[in-house]
């Protein structure tokens, strides 16, 4: 088990965005988080990564309690996320963008140069994979929406994170690149990286994920292997309406 949610509650004013959500994600897996719009998926990410305080419950990662940590403390534990709306740093070059992610904030590290030979090599390799290596020294503001999403995804691979949270990584990206990204995620997973992915494309979810959690109106509706979820009457209801 890597993540464990126990009765997690998040309220926005009178609206309960997460309603006693409890689940465990299996160790070493690519876990999919699905649900209709407004079901609480991104809120769950924000609570999990310390961007939003929660109103009840507990969250554990590898049996350590992590709720209440600040966003950078979550990253220091080896958990990194991407954002649904891409948030690359527009006036920094692609290379500088890739040098930003870090797992340490110690003073001795802050006074080092960000560009080490190892980091540079890794950044170059990742930029080659997404086909942007020619623009390494250009500001990120020149990128198209799709390219920004790719860069954002690449950012999360720059540090040796154990767990990567992806919020709709392939939304708005052309199908051939999409399958490239999914192959990449699978390859990283085989190397030992775990993933928790918000994804709307059912075909992708069913093929890519080992385990699926379904949210609906802030509650966990179902959880299980892709084949089970596909047969689940409640899930079909939630998606197709009644």
């Amino acid at each position: 088990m890597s993540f464990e949610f126990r009765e997690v509650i998040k309220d926005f004013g009178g609206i309960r965005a997460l309603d006693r959500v409890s689940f465990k994600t299996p160790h070493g897996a690519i876990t999919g988080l699905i649900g209709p719009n407004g079901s609480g998926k991104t809120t769950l990410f924000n609570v999990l990564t310390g961007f939003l305080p929660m109103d009840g419950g507990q969250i554990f990662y590898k049996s350590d309690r992590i709720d209440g940590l600040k966003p950078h403390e979550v990253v220091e534990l080896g958990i990194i996320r991407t954002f649904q709306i891409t948030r690359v740093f527009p006036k920094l070059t692609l290379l500088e963008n890739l040098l930003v992610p870090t797992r340490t904030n110690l003073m001795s590290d802050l006074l080092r140069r960000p560009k080490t030979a190892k980091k540079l090599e890794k950044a170059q390799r990742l930029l080659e994979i997404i086909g942007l290596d020619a623009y390494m020294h250009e500001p990120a503001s020149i990128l198209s929406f799709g390219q920004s999403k790719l860069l954002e995804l690449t950012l999360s691979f720059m540090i040796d994170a154990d767990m990567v949270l992806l919020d709709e990584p392939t939304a708005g990206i052309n199908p051939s690149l999409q399958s490239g990204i999914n192959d990449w995620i699978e390859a990283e997973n085989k190397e030992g990286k775990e993933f928790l992915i918000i994804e709307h494309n059912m075909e992708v979810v069913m093929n890519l994920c080992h385990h699926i959690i379904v949210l609906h109106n802030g509650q966990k509706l179902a959880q299980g292997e892709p084949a089970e979820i596909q047969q689940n009457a409640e899930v079909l209801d939630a998606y197709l309406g009644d």
Partner: protein
Amino acid sequence: MTNLVMVLLIFFPIFVRDRHLLHILIAIFVYVTLVQSWNLPGGYTGYTSFGHVLFFGIGGYTTAMLVVFFSVPTVITYLIAGILSSLVALIFGYISLRLKGPYFAIATLALATMGRYVFLNFEIFGGAEGVLMPMSPLSPDIEKIPYYYGALLVAALTTLTVYLITKTRLGLGLMAIRENEEKAAGAGINTTKHKVIAFIVSAFFPGVIGGLYASYLEYVNPDSCFSILYSANILLMAILGGIGTIAGPILGSAVVVILSEIFSVVIGHQGRLIVFGLLLTFMAIYLPGGLLSVKDKFGYGKKTVSFFDQNTKDE
């Protein structure tokens, strides 16, 4: 180019003894220190302070009080002034750096105004008359020279420090915060720690130069130390030169101080302020990246950052 200017500045007082020219150069060095140190949180991190003069004033009063009442050697008081300024920045930073954009700017403005009133109203600081300091023992034709070199040294150290910081992980983290603070946090940057360090460093140098300038003027009072004109000038110089760059503050300080001298003679003090107001408006509309972005307008620019872009970006 940089080396040549440095050599010229080092030898300048040996050949030129004109008191007024030396005074203008000292004023430029003081402003380079103020604008460059403002630039670290203001230009590189995106936290625009309207109250940077506070640290200059704290430095001035620290030196005046220590020299007059405790007979501390003057040069040592400069260091203490810097440390005291940084201490105030540490406390104030933790409180105010939670605020963003205009809210942060207003908080800094309020703090600087409060600082002025504290020194104006407490008897021990001499009220509106301030504190008189001992006269220089040197003869009038060379008395400016130690201050010339002192201010030059502080301006150079400030510039070097800010430059070196921009080359570190800390500097990259600060720029990431400017570009998108939430994303920076998501990438593992301890944003509070980064901002507070930037703020502490940025307060040290104005503290030192405030002390030096006080002993140069041989007095302090609330207006010489806390005038809102300093903060306004810092913004004007930063924007005119090009914020978030190393050369911008130097260029901006030199241009504004020299223009001030010319305008004071040609159109008078009040007229000068009107012209600078118009200049600031013009820059904001037509050249938000500052004078350094002039060449970028014709080519592709990536190093200069627009003051107005970063404050109007969507949250």
